[in-house]
């Protein structure tokens, strides 16, 4: 009888545990706390400044609000560890850690930087960071697109880097700042938070037009399209439905759409980030162009399930034009070499008079921890942005370096690398001239759901019904996008 009772009690305990586990709700999570208290470290007696010359004590806020506050942070002997979450594969992780090991050896503050793979995509890292923020345990730094950084900022989790950049002791000298591509730096100044610098670039890429040069020549053109009119004409001339060959590979990608809007003279969001405006005349013209391309059968849809289908089809000579990230260059090169082996190149996307580039590449954001950790995190980012590091990273990954002084080294390395044979180093070099035309999509919190909305409510509907009223589709989507913007606006 005792056994029976014990058995019933045990079984009920298991069931009750299960029910509780199923119904468990998260406890309200406080805002991210400092990850660890840094023990006050006694400076060695010999290096102590005499009392008479002691600088006036500066109160350091968390995060530091001024360059002076940053200057006042003492790092020596604190042995801070900086964890960096990124989305690169293991090969790049090893390479990155190799660079960080150099930093760990050379920095005079005893900082230890460690890179970790947060996921294979920016979204993976984003989800992971959000959970970590809720738990109050974010890493010290991570990759983050501008809109993602804005979302973290809305939760008080990322910090403004401006005081660190301006710091006399730890910041960047004027010459260094000028060495950075200005548009790359500007892309991290957040309009929703009065220009706060919510991330800092260590790499960039841009959306370019990949084109099959042999095919273009075959249909009578020696140059890639400069305008959308030429693009449409060439794509339609290239199309042969019977042979399943199409002028343009359409991707379900909000960034592709943004490029179309930019190059038609429009914007995705206003400069101050207060309202989505992709339903402007430029947006309507861009959407009508896409609709015409489908109506005339000059474009082929790449289903979302066919990952990198546009790359494979391009490599196999099935599509003539693809709009995609410049960081895909090494992948395109290898795919074409193994595929149709045709001559190909990249160019700036067509436009309606004014050249524009959609700037890609996430920055590195710093999370609110302790002033010491935040400073250590900044020093890691500063190191990764140095000429040698940004050049190394660019050569290893295909991204663009962030400093002008690194360009020559990177181009030379590509020229010497057989994997980049075929004159592509020249194309790569041209991208740096295009950097000045850079625009960013929407550096605001809540842009991720808007991206999904753009695909669902605009692109998918427009290609399914090329006769659909473009203005109506855009107006409806902008209305919904602005509601999302309002929901995520700084409180």
């Amino acid at each position, binding site marked *: 009888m005792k*056994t*029976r009772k014990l*058995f*019933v009690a*045990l*079984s*009920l305990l*298991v*069931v009750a*545990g*299960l*029910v509780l*586990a*199923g*119904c*468990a*709700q*998260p*406890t309200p*999570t406080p805002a991210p706390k400092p990850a660890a208290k840094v023990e006050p470290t006694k400076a060695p007696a010999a290096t102590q400044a005499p009392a008479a010359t002691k600088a006036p004590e500066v109160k350091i806020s968390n995060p530091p609000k001024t360059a002076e506050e940053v200057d006042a942070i003492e790092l020596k002997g604190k042995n801070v560890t900086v*964890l960096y*979450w990124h*989305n*690169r*594969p*293991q*090969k790049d*992780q*090893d390479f990155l850690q190799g660079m960080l090991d150099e930093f760990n050896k050379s920095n005079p503050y005893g900082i230890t930087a460690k890179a*970790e*793979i*947060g*996921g*294979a*995509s*920016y979204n993976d890292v984003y*989800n*992971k960071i959000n*959970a*970590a923020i*809720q*738990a109050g*345990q974010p890493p010290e730094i991570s990759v983050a697109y501008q809109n993602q950084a804005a979302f973290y900022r809305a939760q008080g989790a990322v910090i403004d880097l401006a005081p660190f950049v301006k710091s006399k002791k730890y910041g960047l000298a004027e010459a260094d700042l000028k060495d950075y591509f200005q548009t790359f730096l500007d892309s991290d100044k957040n309009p929703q938070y009065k220009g706060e610098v919510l991330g800092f670039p260590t790499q960039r890429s841009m959306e370019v037009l990949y084109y099959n040069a042999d095919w273009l020549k075959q249909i009578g053109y020696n140059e890639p399209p400069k305008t959308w009119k030429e693009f449409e004409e060439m794509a339609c001339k290239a199309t042969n439905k019977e042979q399943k060959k199409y002028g343009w590979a359409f991707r379900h990608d909000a960034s592709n759409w943004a490029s179309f809007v930019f190059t038609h003279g429009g914007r995705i969001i206003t400069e101050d980030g207060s309202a989505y405006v992709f339903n402007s005349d430029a947006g309507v013209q861009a959407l009508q162009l896409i609709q015409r391309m489908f109506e005339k059968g000059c474009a082929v849809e790449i289903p979302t399930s066919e*990952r*990198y289908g546009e*790359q*494979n089809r391009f*490599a*196999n000579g099935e599509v003539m034009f693809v709009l995609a*990230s410049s*960081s*895909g260059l090494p*992948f395109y090169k*290898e*795919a074409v070499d*193994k*595929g*149709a082996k045709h001559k190909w190149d990249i160019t700036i996307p067509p436009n309606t008079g004014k050249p524009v580039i959609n700037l*890609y590449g996430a920055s590195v954001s710093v999370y609110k921890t302790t002033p010491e950790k935040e400073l250590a995190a900044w020093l890691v980012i500063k190191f990764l942005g140095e000429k040698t590091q940004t050049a190394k990273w660019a050569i290893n990954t*295909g991204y663009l370096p962030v400093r002008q002084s690194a360009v020559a080294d990177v181009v030379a390395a590509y020229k010497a690398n057989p994997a980049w044979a075929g004159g592509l180093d020249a194309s790569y070099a041209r991208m740096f001239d295009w950097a000045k035309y850079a625009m960013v999509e929407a550096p605001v919190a809540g842009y991720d759901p808007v991206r999904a909305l753009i695909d669902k409510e605009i692109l998918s509907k427009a290609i399914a019904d090329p006769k659909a009223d473009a203005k109506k589709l855009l107006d409806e989507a902008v209305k919904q996008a602005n509601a999302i913007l309002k929901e995520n606006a700084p409180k």
Partner: protein
Amino acid sequence: MTVRSVPPSSVRPGRLSIAGLIARAGWSRLAIYLLLTLGALGAVFPFIYMITTSLKTYGSVITGNLWPWPPLGAETLQWKNYADAIDAIGWDKQWGMYLFFRYAINSIFVTLAVVAGVMITSVLAAYAFAQMHVPGKNFLFILLLATIMIPGDLTIVPKAVMMYQFKNPFGSGSWYNNYLALIVPFLASVFGIFLLRQFFMQIPKDLFDAALMDGSGHTRYLLTIVLPLSRPALVSVALINFIWAWDSFKWPLLVTRDSNMRVLAVGLQQFLVQEGGTKIQLMMAFSSMVVVPVIVFYFFTQQYFTQGITTTGLKG
């Protein structure tokens, strides 16, 4: 419509023509078989695609060559893709082995622990629900079932937050980036309890009464009578949870950060480089290696699995 039946003697055994088959089975049955065959082919196709792609060159993948090997092509089977896939994932400096094997060890350990845990908790809970007189057990059961209705994606972040906050009783730190986070939250399966309860309920009460008269208690009755009778259902629960734990991707990615804590499904995603591209043949080679244990397990247990599904009222 009537289907004319043909006496078996009119069809020669061993050498059946299509007409003979139709005559014997009837059009409707033939249509059913045809549909089932198509369905089976549809189910098998992704596996065929995976295996064949894993043995192609990158060039054949790009050009969409379906059969690049003799007699249609001149390529040889690219077994080296498997070695390249293992190599591409990287090296585990801590244990001095390819990360693939480290991931595999983690996958095996986590999966076995989860399956063992689920079996224990599911058997105990299902038995209580099915065979014991516990006040309010039906209400509890409905409450339990209700948790299935909550989408997993909705609770994944709160659960991950808990992993950060729970203290590791066996060492320093929290459950995050620890086997505890990979195993403990999945030691109980509502679906497993449901499935076993359905099965246990079919066992006649008389058996328990007889066992009681022979001096048996619940524990002995469960271990010596109920469990041996429930082999098909137990195998089904084990197999379903095995597949689930083995394939789990989102959760391990969310609650681990070190390469040496990750599992095979997480490693697989490394073949997709965002804003870059992928080597499909390597990805497929990796996938093929990942699914082997599931196929082997299913191969040895499929008979029980089918019985388990059909005898628990879960068939469509």
